């Protein structure tokens, strides 16, 4: 493609997306007017979700294609700027959009591992992979492994690794889709999953990478607008001005001052906090005493405890005057009493856990908080290990690397990584500010207010979902203390429009943004899985003579099957989303990164090295997760106190050692392969090796 037509194409795209953004703003204004006219919130929620999904489907239908290179790599003519936006949407998942600010709110400094890990990884993409993969110019990441290391072995392991990490990740995305659709339309979670899935499929099914790319650009625009408006408004609302990313330093100071007051028992506010904490400590101590009694007394103790409660009911019933409320509460306590020793142990252990709420507030900006220096050092070690795993994983996730096949040239691939990180940066640069602003609001306005006059957003969310907002007057003084509030991380982004006093239409916009983030990532991942199976297994290994139509038919069929399986697995609600995401990164980092980087930078790396490297990386990583993650039940001791989520810290070096050892004990790669290495290293050579031949 000549540079003139590229320029014309870019101009045309800019025009289209300009109109599109204008149209979207118009739509939001229309919904806002409808809201003022009294249309109920539920209808507005349906309008938002319906309109955006229809829009994505529309782009998908317009981009339908029957050409292989259009289907797999969008015809390799996506300009750097637009590929950057598409990568941004591809990259930023429900976890980034909804969860990130909440994680920072809850974890403070230590949550920044995600912010750093999910942005700094692009440095590795830019320096080690994107330009070289673009020069190689095939369709999938296993393609590169297959061509560089020769034979089906490396390709096959690559396919396996691509499927395993993409599938783990896609489940987390579809979960997000289900959560948002069900929250904003009132549909059931399982139904929400399949409705969202329909939106994903219409798009990728008809037009593959081409449709996904142009949809992702549209989704990026929605998600960034939806993220920025409430944060900017919240900042203005609290008098910090319209640039929260810069101005939140002042809010942070206020939060820090407030933390000190609330932790200081000699101040009136601190003393009130202390009464609540004392109640939690007493409850935990009582549970602990019962556990000890159970251990020594067994079922006899259990019966005695139950008897005490029953006597209490009897006593209350004979007392005059009778207190119906107290009787009801006492009867409830009898009914809720654990039936056997195992159940009692479970419940009381849980009750004992309430002591966590008695802990003093952790300062927001304080890195690596721990009870002593040793605990703090362990926290620091895990912080740095997690960053490394997330960064290297970023530079190894196939659905991201694949995006750099779609630019017109190596030069554009390099620029495109810049635009990718720039667009991602806009959101990640804002999330720490949002977390602090939300904390400012809770610490200074909510804490100390009266239970009879709670802000509307608090009572609204407390009735909708107790896991997101749980507030009760523990010490009975009628005033809110910080220790009386439990906030779920996802609340921060979801409730920001209401905290800032914005109309419901903005809440709808935020939901649409969250949906865009989850759908765009799910799109890219499903396509990666389907392509690995159809292109790498079916076309390259089973039937290299398959005609184009059949290749695409197989690809689309597989896409459908994978999507349905993923949705089914998701509807079972498996495990912890954050762990799934972390596991996907550690697996990708250990499996792909060493072999890919050595493939470009070390001429001597060969087939045995790649096989050994990928297998040992994946092997160590999976072994460590299996042994240490509580879900699997082995619960082996940790190695050097590293958490299972950062298993990649062992997998990555194992991968590199595998590549080096394997390569050195076997013959150097052939002349042909060495020519391929030169081919990818130089953007243009006079006798370019034709990989396709």
């Amino acid at each position, binding site marked *: 493609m000549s540079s003139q037509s590229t320029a014309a194409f870019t101009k045309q795209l800019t025009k289209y997306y300009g109109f599109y953004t204008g149209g979207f703003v118009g739509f939001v204004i229309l919904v806002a007017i409808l809201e003022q006219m009294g249309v109920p919130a539920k209808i507005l929620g349906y309008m938002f979700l319906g309109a955006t999904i229809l829009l994505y489907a529309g782009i998908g239908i317009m981009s339908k294609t029957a050409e292989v290179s259009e289907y797999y790599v969008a015809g390799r003519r996506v300009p750097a700027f637009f590929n950057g936006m598409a990568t941004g949407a591809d990259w930023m998942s429900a976890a980034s959009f909804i969860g990130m600010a909440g994680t920072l709110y809850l974890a403070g400094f230590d949550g*920044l591992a995600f912010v750093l890990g999910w*942005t700094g990884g692009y440095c590795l993409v830019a320096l080690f992979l994107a330009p070289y993969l673009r020069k190689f110019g095939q369709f999938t990441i296993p393609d590169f492994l297959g061509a560089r290391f020769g034979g089906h072995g490396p390709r096959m392991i690559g396919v396996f690794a691509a499927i395993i990490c993409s599938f783990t990740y896609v489940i987390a995305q579809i979960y997000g889709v289900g959560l948002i659709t069900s929250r904003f339309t009132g549909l059931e979670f399982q139904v929400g999953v399949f409705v969202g899935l329909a939106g994903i499929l219409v798009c990728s099914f008809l037009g593959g990478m081409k449709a996904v790319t142009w949809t992702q650009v549209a989704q990026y625009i929605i998600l960034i607008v939806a993220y920025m408006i409430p944060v900017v408004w919240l900042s203005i609302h609290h008098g910090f001005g319209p640039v929260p990313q810069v101005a939140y330093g002042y809010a942070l100071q206020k939060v820090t001052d407030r933390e000190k007051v609330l932790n200081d028992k000699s101040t009136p506010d601190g003393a009130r906090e202390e009464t609540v904490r004392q109640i939690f400590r007493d409850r935990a101590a009582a549970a602990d005493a019962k556990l000890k009694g159970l251990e020594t007394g067994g079922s006899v103790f259990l019966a005695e405890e139950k008897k005490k409660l029953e006597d209490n009911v009897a006593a209350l019933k004979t007392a005059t005057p009778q207190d119906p409320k107290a009787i009801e509460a006492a009867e409830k306590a009898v009914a809720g009493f654990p039936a056997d020793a195992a159940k009692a142990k479970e419940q009381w252990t849980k009750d004992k856990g309430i002591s966590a709420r008695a802990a003093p507030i952790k300062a927001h900006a304080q890195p*690596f908080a721990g009870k002593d220096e040793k605990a703090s050092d362990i926290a*620091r070690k895990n912080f740095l290990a997690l960053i490394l795993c997330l960064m290297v994983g970023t530079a190894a996730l196939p659905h991201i690397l694949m995006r750099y096949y779609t630019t017109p040239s190596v030069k554009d691939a390099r620029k495109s990584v*810049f635009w990718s*990180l720039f667009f991602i940066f806009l959101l990640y640069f804002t999330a720490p500010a949002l977390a602090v602003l939300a904390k400012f609001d809770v610490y200074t306005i909510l804490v100390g207010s009266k239970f009879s006059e709670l802000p509307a957003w608090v009572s609204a969310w407390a009735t909708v979902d107790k896991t997101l907002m749980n507030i009760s007057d523990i010490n009975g003084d009628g005033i809110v203390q910080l220790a009386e509030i439990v906030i779920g991380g996802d609340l921060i982004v979801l409730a920001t429009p209401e905290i800032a006093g914005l109309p419901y239409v903005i809440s709808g916009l935020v939901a649409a943004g969250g949906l865009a983030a989850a759908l765009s990532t799910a799109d890219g991942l499903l396509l990666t899985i389907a392509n690995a199976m159809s292109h790498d297994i079916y076309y390259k290994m089973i039937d290299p003579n398959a005609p184009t139509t059949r290749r695409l038919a197989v690809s689309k069929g597989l896409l459908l099957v994978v999507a349905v399986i993923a949705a089914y697995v998701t509807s079972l609600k498996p495990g912890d989303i954050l762990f799934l995401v972390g596991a996907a990164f550690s697996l990708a980092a250990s499996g792909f990164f060493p072999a890919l980087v050595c493939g470009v930078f070390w001429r001597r790396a060969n087939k045995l090295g790649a096989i050994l490297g990928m297998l040992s990386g994946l092997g160590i990583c999976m072994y460590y997760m299996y042994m240490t993650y509580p879900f699997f039940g082995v619960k082996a001791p940790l190695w050097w106190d590293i958490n299972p989520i950062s298993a990649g810290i062992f997998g990555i070096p194992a991968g590199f050692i595998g590549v080096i050892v394997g390569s050195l004990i076997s013959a150097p790669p052939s002349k042909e392969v060495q020519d391929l290495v030169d081919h990818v290293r130089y953007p243009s050579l006079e006798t370019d090796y034709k990989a396709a031949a």
Partner: protein
Amino acid sequence: MQLTQKHHEYWNRNLKVTGILLALWFLVTFVMGYFARELNGITVFGFPLGFYMSAQGSLAIYVAIIWFYAHYMNNLDKEYGVHEGKEE
């Protein structure tokens, strides 16, 4: 094909810039992360420095690293005649 001296020089310069930028990346991520507790003692524009670097400062440096690399390499391609498309 047989690579010329010029090609090797191009590749060496690429390795050098990659190495320098990687060192910078390592410094802002891991060295500053490691000393975050100590850096927090310094206050810049109302922010504790350790917190600020991890929350926003490092991110801006990452963007700059990638911008610089793209800019530098795209010029290097032209200087060594290995750029794509002859008409530019």
